[in-house]
């Protein structure tokens, strides 16, 4: 089974040279720590920076230099800064090759819910609805089940949707799955996790074809 770092490491293997990438808050943010050697990518943060770099050294934090998670960051050489309309022009205009975000629920048709629990938690969608409505390539990073052990990979989302039929791939602590017209297709198992365990943790339609390889993670 993977921890959050492991999920980030596995998604980092999906990065390709010269891609522009938007990473959501939470597990997706960790991906920046595991960029494969020889791969050059630029990270966009939707509050208005392209070429987001690492956190600053202590004492060098700048209140005017943050990411969409409101964390202090630094710009990389070659970075650019712009207003929110330009930022979402990049997103809506499909200039970004990969979007990775977290989710509370994903349905087997690619629907995603991650912004609201009615009556209990209403934080808002931020840029998530713009991202999922426009991005061509969306990977969801999340735990396979919630704190009560219930599946987060469902036949149908129960929470208010963020976007419809948009998720392409899911990487969880248990598996890598592609979203296909027939449902979740199991691609890889996490180290030490059996197909049976993944079946039991998946409520939505699950397609299992042939031998399912184990992920290779350093």
């Amino acid at each position, binding site marked *: 089974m993977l921890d959050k770092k492991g999920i980030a490491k596995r998604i980092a293997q999906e990065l390709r040279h010269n891609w522009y990438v938007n990473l959501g808050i939470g597990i997706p943010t960790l991906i920046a720590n595991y960029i494969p050697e020889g791969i050059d990518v630029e990270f966009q943060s939707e509050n208005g920076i392209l070429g987001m770099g690492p*956190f600053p050294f202590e004492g060098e934090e700048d209140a005017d230099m943050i990411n969409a998670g409101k964390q202090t960051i630094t710009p990389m050489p070659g970075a650019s800064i712009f207003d929110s309309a330009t930022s979402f022009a990049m997103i809506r205009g499909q200039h970004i090759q990969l979007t990775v975000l977290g989710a509370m629920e994903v349905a087997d048709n690619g629907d995603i819910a991650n912004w609201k629990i009615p009556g209990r938690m209403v934080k808002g969608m931020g840029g998530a609805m713009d991202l999922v409505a426009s991005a061509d390539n969306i990977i969801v990073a999340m735990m396979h089940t919630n704190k009560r052990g219930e599946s987060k990979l469902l036949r149908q989302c129960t929470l208010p949707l963020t976007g419809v039929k948009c998720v392409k791939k899911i990487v969880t602590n248990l598996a890598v799955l592609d979203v296909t017209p027939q449902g979740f297709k199991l691609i890889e198992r996490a180290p030490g996790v059996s197909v049976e365990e993944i079946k039991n943790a998946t409520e939505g339609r699950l397609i299992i074809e042939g031998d399912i390889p184990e992920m290779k993670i350093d």
Partner: protein
Amino acid sequence: MNKLVANAQQAVQDIESGMTLMLGGFGLCGIPENCIAALVEKGIKDLTCISNNAGVDDFGLGLLLQKRQIKKMISSYVGENDEFERQMLSGELEVDLIPQGSLAARCQAGGSGVPAFFTPAGYGTEVAIGKEVRYFNGKPHLLEHALTADFAIVKAWKGDRYGNLLFKGTARNFNPLMAMAGKITIAEVEELVEPGELDPNNIHTPGIFVQRIFQGEKYEKRIEQRTVRER
């Protein structure tokens, strides 16, 4: 051209209860601290505030929320403010949550004479309720309307008495867009410079969008999430 006013109190003097305000900033980054303090002091009520976030409990728009001066918030993300969430869940505060990109585009449209536009964001979600849907290139889009405000209040790094503005780092965010969409736009700046000091090639907001400008003071510039790496 001289759009200079003395201070925040003078800049907001004719803002009245019940008005609609736009306030620039993303989280606490690039917020008009001086004008928010002046609005708290002024004590006006029933404001509709258009701002990407709602500050934190004890800073930014959170200060106006604490005093119950806001009737309605139009925002995209309000997760850092417990008082906001409490007022919203209890029904005291009216809230319109809209996707961040749509919010940015709606402000820009409002200041640009574009009454409405189509965007894919929010199709098939609660955000789409009551909105016209049209297909372009086989994909569904929602009709979103422009936003304007009685006053837009923005914060810039440098500015001159013509109203030309320059922003610093990611404090730019919504500020240039909201500056366009206010019937009256107030800009508070960290540094007021002489006309000609700003390079005309590098002005983010041309002065035409700004009606009042003043040099702010005592900027706190709070950091919400102080994240650092080891040396």
